[in-house]
């Protein structure tokens, strides 16, 4: 009998449930009665192995060999995906759960910790200083890294120089640089040799060192994906090299470049060790990145969680939760701003393009503009002739 591979029949569900039940029972039998083993993890692993074996045997009664293999592989892969998702989900859930007592107070987001001691209740004090510090440091790092990284990636993809391979090797090596080394490097050069104070700026520079190779590497890959035919087309119109890059290559790769910047920010925003070295920890709000320690969320989480006081620990987990939410928000913004592949329009963009097209037509060839509902009659409405059938 042909088996549909894409759908999930009632019979499949019954079989899965039966096999699941039997494997749990067998595991209980083996674990509790027949062998002196114990422990939850061992039980789960045994149950899973029994499940796979039983499922394969049961399937083989009715199915052909390829179908049995297909089913067993489906189970294994689904299980692998589930383990990964559960791991991720439990990290997020655990952090929010531990931080919830702090998170639910509004003052957590509007106050810093300058007057709040470790034993004071969660209704006082917050991590505003760390939120602002993280935002300032990330912003400075972005300003430092994005132009540098994109320029470097353009060099790697467009140049025929012999230095390209050397630069690419160095960048690859830099991705493996331990962050503490980046922190020490900036501490040694910027603070000790050049004599600048430890500050948010110094921390931003050390974060930039961590972000740079990540952005360069992924931007390099993205720029190489831009079809050579587009470069040729621009060149054939008499575009000099730099104009080809600026007007054709970079806009075409925009969405991919956004992703590479996101990857860089993801790396930089969570850096703890270099910030600790080059900026240090502060309990009060500091808006000046050139002077005095500036706190960041990961450093704050680290400092607070290492305290023995339960309230401080809750604040630490709260800070970590805020960091996660912030990353999510930043990514969403970046995706919305730079997300679409070049040449694809969102519904709203398509609507705006249609309106502009009509405006262009009215300007270029006024007599041929259709009588249909004019622009602005209802803002944003698609003119009738352009509506998709």
């Amino acid at each position, binding site marked *: 009998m042909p088996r549909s591979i894409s759908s999930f029949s009632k019979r499949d569900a019954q079989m899965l449930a039966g096999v699941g039940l039997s494997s749990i029972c067998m595991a209980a039998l083996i674990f509790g009665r027949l062998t002196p083993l114990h422990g939850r993890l061992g039980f789960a692993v045994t149950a899973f192995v029994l499940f796979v074996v039983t499922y394969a045997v049961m399937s083989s009664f009715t199915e052909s060999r390829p179908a049995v293999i297909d089913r067993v592989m489906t189970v294994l892969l689904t299980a692998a995906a589930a383990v990964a998702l559960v791991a991720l989900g439990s990290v997020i859930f655990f952090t929010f759960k531990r931080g919830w007592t702090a998170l639910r107070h509004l003052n957590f987001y509007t106050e810093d910790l300058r007057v709040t001691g470790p034993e004071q209740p969660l209704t006082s004090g917050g991590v505003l200083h760390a939120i602002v510090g993280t935002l300032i440091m990330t912003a400075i790092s972005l300003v430092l890294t994005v132009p540098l990284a994109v320029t470097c990636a353009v060099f790697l993809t467009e140049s025929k120089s012999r230095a390209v391979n050397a630069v690419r090797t160095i960048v690859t090596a830099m991705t493996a640089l331990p962050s503490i080394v980046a922190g020490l490097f900036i501490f040694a050069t910027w603070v000790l040799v050049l004599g600048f104070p430890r500050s948010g700026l110094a921390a931003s520079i050390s974060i930039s060192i961590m972000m740079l190779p990540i952005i360069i590497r992924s931007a390099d890959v993205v720029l190489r994906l831009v079809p050579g035919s587009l470069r040729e087309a621009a060149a054939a119109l*008499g575009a000099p090299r730099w104009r080809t890059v600026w007007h054709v290559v970079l806009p075409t790769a925009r969405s991919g470049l956004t992703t590479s910047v996101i990857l860089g920010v993801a790396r930089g925003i969570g850096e703890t060790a270099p910030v600790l070295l080059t900026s240090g920890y502060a309990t009060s709000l500091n808006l000046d990145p050139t002077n005095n320690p500036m706190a960041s969320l990961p450093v704050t989480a680290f400092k607070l969680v290492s305290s023995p006081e339960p309230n401080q620990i809750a604040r630490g987990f709260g800070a970590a939760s805020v960091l996660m939410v912030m990353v999510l928000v930043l990514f969403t913004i970046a995706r919305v701003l730079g997300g679409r592949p070049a040449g694809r329009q969102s519904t709203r963009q398509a609507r705006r393009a249609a309106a502009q097209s009509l405006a262009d037509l009215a300007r*270029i060839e006024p007599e041929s503009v259709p009588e249909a509902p004019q622009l602005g009659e209802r803002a944003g409405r698609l003119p009738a002739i352009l509506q998709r059938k």
Partner: protein
Amino acid sequence: MTEQGVTSVTDQGPTIRIDEPRAGDAPSETTAVDGHVVFDVRDLSVYYGPFRAVRDANLHIRQHEITAFIGPSGCGKTTVLRCFNRMNDFIETARVEGTINYHGVDLYDPQVNSTEVRRRIGMVFQKPNPFPKSIYDNVAYGPRLAGMKKKAELDDVVEKSLRGAALWDEVKDRLKNSGLGLSGGQQQRLCIARAIAVDPEVILMDEPCSALDPIATARIEDLMQEIKSKFTIVIVTHNMQQAARVSDRTAFFTTEVNPESDRRTGVLVEYDLTKKIFSNPGDERTEQYVTGRFG
């Protein structure tokens, strides 16, 4: 482009009047009325590294004519074509010997500005390659490069070019939509519109119809006939019928096996009026190729 008649491709180099007749000394001339020579190719050899891809090609490309390059794969048609606007510059190992004179100026003279060459000598590629921008911006790209900023002027160029490429009526109410949303044939005509928007003198076409269906191909061929009064066209094609249909002159290339290295080098076998090439070719190899006995 400068006013018709005066052209200069070097930064400070010579200025040549193109309406000054040049003595045509192409091999086996059979026509009485010859257009002015745009490209005078002498002993052109192209190398990729140590490998010689094309050997000793000699031909004249004449103004307001369609010249077709035909021949089997690997015979160097495209290589020669890409020498005309110095696209081979982008291939690191490519090297050119001999001369290509464009209105008497050697295109490979160190003084020649290759960017300016490409602005005057446009190109349409095998696969339609519109930029991932709007239709309007695709066409306006070249004029904007040349410094045109005024909306009215740009509008004018965009309209004229799209009309010139027989695309205006199909896209006039969606100029701001992405060029990638068009069909393959429309995209190729958009690329032609983009090429003619900078008002080049020559348009090089590298198998412009190989990715298109017969109907779209017919439209492009009609278009070539329409625009040939304004431009000089050189087309590479694998399709002999196409060459016979559209071109005034045809150059037949073939490959020669190098006995020592077993590598194949392209040679120009015969260059003549299309009529003659297809009815009464002077070379046996040409006859075999156009009658379908080889290649």
